[in-house]
């Protein structure tokens, strides 16, 4: 599948316009900025439609992650294919502590990926069957990959300070 084909497909099915990026420079063929999901409108969120389309077209969900830009979080979904590889990355803006629709009903892989994002960034995935901590302890009350997170002593780890002289 060529980037052009996918572009047309997305334009006709979802009415979105992905941007073609230079694969040799950034390792990604298409990048798509989606509108932020609203809490009230999760069912109709574009990213779920996108995932359904991707599943039909033979893509698989590589990963879901988030990036903290201080003002907002950016959820990144990465899709690629087994045959004729083509990588499409979709970015969705989410506010801190905000909501996003869950893809667990579409891709089974999304289950754990979303749990990890919830774990690390505190984004709540609405419709997720089992949104619990994945890597951190069950009773953790922090989201370590947020940029304003500072480790506290009770998070563990210790440092030997070198005494000079």
């Amino acid at each position, binding site marked *: 599948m060529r980037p052009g084909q996918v572009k047309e497909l997305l334009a006709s099915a979802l009415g979105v316009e992905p941007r073609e990026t230079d694969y040799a420079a950034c390792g990604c063929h298409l990048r798509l900025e989606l509108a932020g999901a609203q809490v009230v409108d999760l069912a109709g969120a574009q990213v779920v439609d996108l995932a359904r389309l991707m599943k039909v077209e033979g893509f698989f969900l590589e990963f879901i992650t988030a990036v903290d830009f201080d003002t907002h979080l950016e959820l990144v979904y990465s899709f690629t294919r087994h045959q004729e590889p083509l990588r499409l990355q979709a970015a969705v803006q989410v506010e801190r502590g905000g909501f996003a629709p869950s893809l667990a009903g579409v891709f089974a892989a999304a289950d754990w990926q979303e749990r990890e994002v919830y774990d*690390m960034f505190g984004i709540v995935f609405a419709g997720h069957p089992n949104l619990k901590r994945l890597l951190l302890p069950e009773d953790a009350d922090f989201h370590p*990959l947020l940029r304003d997170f500072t480790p506290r002593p009770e998070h563990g780890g210790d440092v030997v300070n070198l005494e000079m002289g």
Partner: protein
Amino acid sequence: MLRKTLIHDTFYLNLGPQHPSTHGVLRLLLRLEGERVVECQPVIGYSHRGHEHMAQNRSWLQFLPNTSRMDYLSALLYNHAYCLAVERACGITVPPRAEYIRVICAELNRIASHLLWFGAYLLDLGAFTPFLYAFDDREDILAILGEVTGSRLTYCYCRFGGVARDLNQAFLDGVRAFIPKLRRRLKDYHTLVSKNVIFLNRTKGIGVMSPEQARDYAVTGPNLRASGVNYDVRKAEPYSVYPELDFEVPLGEHGDCYDRYYVRLLEMEQSLRIVEQALERLPSGPIRAAGVEQEPAPPPGAYHFAYESARGQLGIYLVSDGGRIPVRMKWRVPSFSNLSVLPELLAGTLVADTIAILGSLDLVIPEIDR
């Protein structure tokens, strides 16, 4: 009433985190009916060290030693992948000799990783001896890699724009002696294990993963190829010097434990071929690109790099603001997705099969936890 509870009584068994077959610290919460698994729930995170958090607190260069601590069995592959990712982001061209050296070392490391898996898997199935044969072979690789990298397990050998040290004669001699030796050993492994009727009974038709299932759970690597899907990042999104080398991608048919086993054994042979060819073509020249800054910083933007590690597709997603310290570094580790399919494979199997299936997925838990 009593009869009903007796028949439908199930109990929970905590397999791990301290258990001989969970390789690292994985906990499987199994609901059993007698010896039959009704439900399985993997619990991970016991060796979470926060590598992605560390990445946000140190420079691009300083993250280099971290890469080899995620999947310590294929440390050089991670090392290589990270360097390639940053080089792509910064636009650094690596001299061909350095790239060939990296590929030779990476493929040797891939063989070492597969050998360790082979031994540990047979150990899970109750055969102790192949484990030590595999370790004997792996020891050779560690010694060879030690000659040039200076360490045995957690290598930090690749640098942005090249490698830390040139190959020496001991390395070349070691590799040339090792290739025929491993070929002989692989023959013995086939006689001792692949054709063994007990082994066949334990693995054939067990833990069958369909290609659709694999895609749904984003399973990659030998686990995916055992299901017959031809997807190897080295072929699909060629990087480094792999396009210049001639190798095949072994595929399975049924997606059962035996195919996952057999695909890995065949992959070792292909890796040997790659090493052989790369040694033959090894160009002369510098091993470090000239004019690379001490601490390169990629221009602002998001970058992705896909790499075929020993366990599947390794993805590195970098976000840079042009500064010395990354904004975000996401590691898409293959074992994470490979483990997530486990509950589906385990439903309805016996405890003994649980071990056989868990082992066949080739998981490295610290890699999952990061």
